[in-house]
């Protein structure tokens, strides 16, 4: 009785706050290695919430904790008022999962993959038939219905995994790098489909390391690196806060950086330098541009700041494996 009451209270609490997923001080250790180091996040209902970060940041591990694929080491996690691992089965019923790797059944056709997967949710062919047809249409897979998985392109496989995640009409959809490795056409098709699904009131949790994807799809973002959350905000505010509206890239030798910074010292900006470029982040782009034109000594590029600038600034420019 008490357990039941606990679950119910928590449900009402999350309902009132309108957060469908809440995590506090979430930690995951694999042996001695801490992959997720105590993160907090609250995901509002019917929004698209993104986890942005370089390889190894802990994005997949975080997603896996949400869908009970890896155990939470410590901290608290609540999904629609349910808590893993005790409510594991109930949680899985309301989640649709698009894992990082396509784990489709290679021996089965497109259509059979969906039929067999719907059965795992307790849906018979009769119950799932209409939904399957609808999803095949929606993801433009109708023509491929009898094709086996190894014959599909990367984009088709990804769309099929998306269709598979929607068979049981889940409330929350978890997408772990939905478009990594796909060509631009395939990515745009998936983005359009996700945007139209967003209108149906489902909640999306997404990981990506594509900034354009995050900017386009996410209402709110966290930036993760090395198991920690560095920042949380809307894409727009992240840019404003860390970079300023404008970025000027100056192509320049290392020795000359000091002198140019001297020239620009009257203005407000932050900067960063790589081996061949100086990045100026600012709200006063036009004044700095004027100065640069006056100096007439450098090649430069003026553009709107992007999430990518924030990302590189906060996570550094060295390679990640």
């Amino acid at each position, binding site marked *: 009785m008490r357990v039941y009451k606990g679950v119910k209270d928590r449900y009402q609490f999350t309902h009132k706050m309108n957060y469908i997923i809440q995590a506090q001080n979430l930690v995951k250790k694999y042996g001695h290695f801490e992959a997720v180091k105590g993160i907090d996040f609250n995901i509002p209902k019917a929004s698209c919430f993104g986890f942005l970060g370089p390889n190894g940041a802990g994005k997949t591990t975080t997603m896996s904790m949400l869908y009970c694929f890896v155990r939470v080491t410590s901290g608290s996690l609540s999904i629609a008022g349910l808590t893993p691992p005790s409510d594991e089965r109930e949680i899985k019923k309301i989640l649709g999962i698009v894992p990082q790797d396509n784990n489709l*059944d290679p*021996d*089965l056709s497109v259509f059979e993959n969906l039929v067999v997967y719907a059965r795992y949710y307790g849906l018979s062919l009769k119950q799932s038939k209409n939904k399957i047809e609808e999803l095949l249409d929606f993801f433009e897979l109708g023509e491929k219905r009898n094709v086996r998985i190894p014959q599909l392109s990367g984009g088709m496989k990804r769309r099929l995994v998306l269709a598979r995640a929607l068979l049981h009409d889940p409330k929350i959809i978890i997408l772990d790098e939905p478009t990594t490795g796909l060509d631009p056409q395939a990515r745009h098709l998936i983005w359009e489909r996700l945007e139209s699904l967003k209108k149906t009131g489902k909640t999306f949790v997404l990981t990506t390391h594509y900034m354009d994807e995050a900017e386009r799809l996410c209402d709110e973002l966290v930036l993760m690196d090395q198991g920690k959350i560095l920042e949380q905000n809307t894409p727009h505010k992240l840019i404003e806060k860390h970079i300023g509206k404008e970025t000027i890239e100056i192509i320049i030798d290392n020795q000359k950086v000091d002198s140019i910074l001297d020239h620009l010292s009257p203005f407000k900006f932050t900067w960063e330098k790589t081996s061949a470029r100086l990045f100026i982040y600012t709200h006063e782009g036009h004044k700095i541009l004027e100065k640069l034109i006056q100096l007439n000594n450098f090649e430069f590029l003026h553009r709107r700041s992007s999430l990518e600038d924030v990302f590189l600034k906060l996570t550094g420019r060295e390679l990640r494996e």
Partner: protein
Amino acid sequence: MITSRFLRVWQRNFVVWTKYYLSTLIGAIGEPLIFLWALGYGMGRYIVHIDGMSYLEFMAPGLWITACMNASSLECTFNTFTRLSTQKTYDAIIATPISPAEIAAGDVLFGATRSFITGNLVLAIYFLFGLIHHWSALFIPFIGFVVGLFFGSLGLCMTALARSYDFFTYYFILVLTPALMLTGVFFPVSNLPQPLRDIVSWVPLTQMVSITRDIFLNRWQWSSVGYIIYTLAFSLLLFLVAAKLMHRRLIK
């Protein structure tokens, strides 16, 4: 807890199997036939009688059990490992309300199903070869199913521990093949030295071989039922271990 959802895993395996059944059946039936011919007709000429039976009569039930054993052993080792590791089919399944224990149950049941199917086919061939003389043989497929549950569960334990396919080569060569040599398939257990004979008599395979032989000869007794229950209980124990190991393997 295991719910009826495990039947969906069985069903998935069955759907995939229907695409390959011909090749698996040819292998499953071919082996006992070759043995039967080589050992029965070939070597059997040099062996006059064992316990009052011709060598062919003595060996046919043991070979039949071997075919059943192999069917579920192959299914729950190589094939399960492919689904677990290479194809990541099970990662996809545990994202749904199906639990690792239910996956294990579906797999063992499917292994036993394959044993049952193989058993029936080999039995039909025996019938054509005139090796079956009694109606009691109709009970034999049920024993094939029990043997399938046992070796399916044991195979699944191995799979949950395996890091690569090589592991199964060891399992087949170092565990299953010696088991066949010692449990009365090729020669009577009574030929074994005393301490070994005592140990072997506790192995369910020994009992299944001897019960099957008794049924073939229409001389089975009610005590046989006790051995079947013993084998089922042993299988259940192995299955629980397998389910635990699968859970540990699948959920990090």
